[in-house]
């Protein structure tokens, strides 16, 4: 391709100088027209070599990492031909979904024959499997008048897998111990000693404590801790206020909650626990996955159109959609920055929209149940273990946990408040307060710093879930 624009400038300048020179009778201006014509000649004679030979190689520093972590990529391009390339500009084929957080995947360089140039950059990873395209190279002649764009096949690594929950359910070895059974605070059928009581006629013979009979002559019956078979419901919180991240390029709170939910769901399913899956905050266009009340309620054996994997795909899709961003818009840095700001607004709005408190004259609490709580309580069976995956970006999880008076509640909370700005620090304080309140209401909480693995977090925060009983 040739840049004809420079022809116009040269001709225009030359004509202007000749015209001015003739009008003003200035010889110097007329001969000055030679200067743009020399530039013009230089442009005409300068071309990109016809046989360009380039090779490229890409290396990853680490692969197969978790969402939120970073991957360092080094791309090297070499002029394997015999001609000098005075103007080579290259852009690596970074997948659209990934954000470059440091360095640049672009090179602009002049390469002699046999020379090579490299660039190192870092991308922020999100859940999924991504394939890098071949780098695109644009070559220009020395004068910039001739231009050619080619794609150079890149050797080396090109695919990065970022902890795909479906294919890598690594929580399997740390599955919930006796998943689906909850130790109740009553005696009954079970394996663990709970208490003794006075013998009642009809008690099984093998439950009588014969040692006690031999010592005292009194018949007592041993009770074991009763174990109830309960249903587990995984609730993923992807309301708009949770779709915020602490830094450009990092996944949103909703995305990380969905990731945790998917890992847990797969593990529970593989452990044979009957688990339901639901989510709060799905947008209107997900109506095909939800029931009349706006909640999806899925189980492992559901049909394909409303299967958990379909729901997780949908949750991941909207979890990455920052509040205020239209569907189909690319995740540009500007839109992320805008969303980052609007996320704060959505967060504040959520606090007022979902939880309205009216002080009562007697000092009591007349808080109304938020919409999502009402809907979930209407759906939850009596004996249910609820696992709520939420970044706890507002008060709703606390309010929800408080309503689960007769149910076991576990809150897995990815921390997306790790930023250093004043606003983020205040948000972090608020989040910690909410986690404390959750504990106060009897919920077990797992605070998950997203730069660490979820398995380690669960083992530290909820050891009882990983102990075989």
């Amino acid at each position, binding site marked *: 391709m040739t840049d004809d624009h420079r022809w116009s400038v040269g001709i*225009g300048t030359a*004509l*202007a100088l000749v015209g001015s020179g003739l*009008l003003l009778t200035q010889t110097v201006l007329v001969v000055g027209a030679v*200067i743009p014509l020399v530039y013009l000649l*230089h442009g005409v004679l300068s071309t990109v070599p016809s046989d360009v030979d380039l090779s490229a190689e890409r290396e990853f520093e680490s692969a197969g990492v978790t969402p939120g972590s970073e991957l360092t990529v080094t791309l090297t391009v070499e002029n394997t031909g015999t001609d000098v390339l005075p103007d080579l500009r*290259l*852009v690596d084929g970074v997948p*659209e979904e*990934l954000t470059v957080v440091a360095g640049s995947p672009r090179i602009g360089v002049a390469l002699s024959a046999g020379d090579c140039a490299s660039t190192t950059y870092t991308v922020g990873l999100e859940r999924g499997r991504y394939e890098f395209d071949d780098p695109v190279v644009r070559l220009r002649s020395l004068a910039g008048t001739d231009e050619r764009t080619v794609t150079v096949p890149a050797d080396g690594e090109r695919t990065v897998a970022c902890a795909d929950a479906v294919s890598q359910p690594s929580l399997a070895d740390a599955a919930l111990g006796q998943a689906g059974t909850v130790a109740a605070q009553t005696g009954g059928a079970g394996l663990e000693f709970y208490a003794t009581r006075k013998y009642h006629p009809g008690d099984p013979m093998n439950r009588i404590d014969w040692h006690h009979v031999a010592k005292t002559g009194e018949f007592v019956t041993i009770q074991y801790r009763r174990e109830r078979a309960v249903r587990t419901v995984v609730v993923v919180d992807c309301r708009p206020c949770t779709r915020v991240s602490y830094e450009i390029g990092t996944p949103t709170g909703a995305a990380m909650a969905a990731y945790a939910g998917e890992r847990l769901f797969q593990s529970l399913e593989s452990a044979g626990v009957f688990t339901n899956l639901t989510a709060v905050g799905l947008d209107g266009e997900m109506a095909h996955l939800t029931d009349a009340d706006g909640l999806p309620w899925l189980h492992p054996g559901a049909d394909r159109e409303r299967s958990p994997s379909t729901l997780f795909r949908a949750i991941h899709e909207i979890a990455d959609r920052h509040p205020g961003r239209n569907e189909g818009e690319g995740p540009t840095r500007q839109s992320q920055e805008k969303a980052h700001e609007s996320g704060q607004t959505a967060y504040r709005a959520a606090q007022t929209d979902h939880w309205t408190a009216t002080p009562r004259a007697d000092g009591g609490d007349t808080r109304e149940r938020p919409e999502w709580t009402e809907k979930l309580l209407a759906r939850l069976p009596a004996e249910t273990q609820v696992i709520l995956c939420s970044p706890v970006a507002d008060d709703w999880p606390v309010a929800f946990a408080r309503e689960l008076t007769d149910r076991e509640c576990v809150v897995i909370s990815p921390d997306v408040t790790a930023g250093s700005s004043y606003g983020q620090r205040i948000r972090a304080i608020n989040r910690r307060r909410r986690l404390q309140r959750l504990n106060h209401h009897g919920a077990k909480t797992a605070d998950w710093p997203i730069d660490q693995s979820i398995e380690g977090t669960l083992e530290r925060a909820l050891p009882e879930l990983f102990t075989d009983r």
Partner: protein
Amino acid sequence: MSTSHRTGPPKTSTAVVGVLALFTIGLLLREVPVHATALVGFLGAVSLTVSLWLVDRETELAGRLTVSLLTIPVAAGFVVGIFGTTLLLIGSFFPVENVSDVSIATLIVLGNLGVVVGSGIAIFGVTLGVNNVIASRALTAYTRTAVATALVPLGTGSVLVTSIALREGSPDGVNLLFERQIEKAWTALVSPGGTQLHFASFLLTVGAAAGVCWLLVRRFPFGSLVGAESNRWRYIRQQATALGPPRRVGVAFGLLTVGAVLAELLLAPAEIQSLVTAPLYNLVQLLTTADWLRLLLLGTTVVGTIWLGLSVILEELPGTRQADRSTMLAPLLLGGFWTLLAAVVSESLFSWLVTEIASQLPSGPAAEMLSVSGSIEAVYGSTPLIVLLAGIFLGVPAGIGVLLLGGVRGGYLAAGGTGFSVACGGLCLASVSASIISAPTWLVLGGVAVGLAIWDIGHFGTTVGHEVGEGARGQLVVVRVSTTLLVGLAGVALAAGLGRWLWADGFDASPRITLALVLLVTSLVAFANALR
């Protein structure tokens, strides 16, 4: 890929362009006898770029206040750089001993002024190219701020002067200057007499009225009246759009007007009459000189323009965010402050201005100016006049903003690297002007070569910044820059050698002017188009 890279030109190319421009401008300015006013002009150019840069980044109150403050150096740069330099040059080269020397002295003044103005444009272009801030949004914000700054003094001054004029009437001496001109313009526009055709002025009036009507139809709120979703609205919209395209119609109308102007200038009425036959000539003349028709067209233009202005203000005002309105308070308050300051120092400032200007003029015009200014001051007083002048002075940046905005909206200044094109144009103007004032050959040729090199390196830097950003290596820039400079050097050497060899004896005068004019018009169109 979602990535954000620094899209500005590489530092190396920017530095080379800056050094080349400053060095060449420094050398060119050595040929000019006035430096102080030129430096004020350059300061104004830099202030304008800084203002555009600030308004693009600082949208809060403090930013707008700074931009509003910077309208003073911008206006000073423009007024002092052009009018001040002109006055000083007139003072240096006039009066002349012989009448025959007037044209030569005028040419020298124009040459010097061309060097100063060209250099100022080049500085503005280079600073603009480095920051790449000539965007519609920034220009709109800047123009709004400048208008808000000028609004209070301009409004106050206009009200004061108008009220005094209505109460006291015009002073006798001023009639000579203003009323006669107004009367002439009124006669030419509304009731031209004589045997001439007056076709060109009629076409201009028709064009103005038609343009305003077209804009009115485009802006008319049909959607609000018939419902924006209705089919009828779509039909009306289609019909309104079908009135265009304005560019083609405008070009055709403009060519017709230019043709009419040339015909009326070059041909006598009798010649035109003989060409088009007498009945047709009389019929057209009857139409083009009809007072009522011209008055109707003029009235349509004036009323339409007022209507358009009001509709734009009323439409944009509710849409303006509260934050924008509050940021406009700063320039308005600052404008108020300048008004008060102008009123306080008006008496001494008026006499200083008049004395300074008169001291630079030849004795005849100076005496006439002192007499007229004395009459004006006697009727209006120095305070209203100085306040009005302050408003006009502060309105200059707004005018520059409107001009630049027109260039951007029209697509001329919208492309990347526009600043470097402007700088190239400025340096070429300065070099051509330097040839008039007998600057050394190497300097004129070098100025042209540097102008082209700045254009080339600047655009190269812009594309590199856009395509690879911070990934650009220094060697890439060095290779390109050194090549461009070497080619320019070769061009200068070749041109200088050619000049010595070919035209040592100068030109043959006879066919020169015609050829020069044709070449100049063609080249200016091509050059202006190519620099986009």
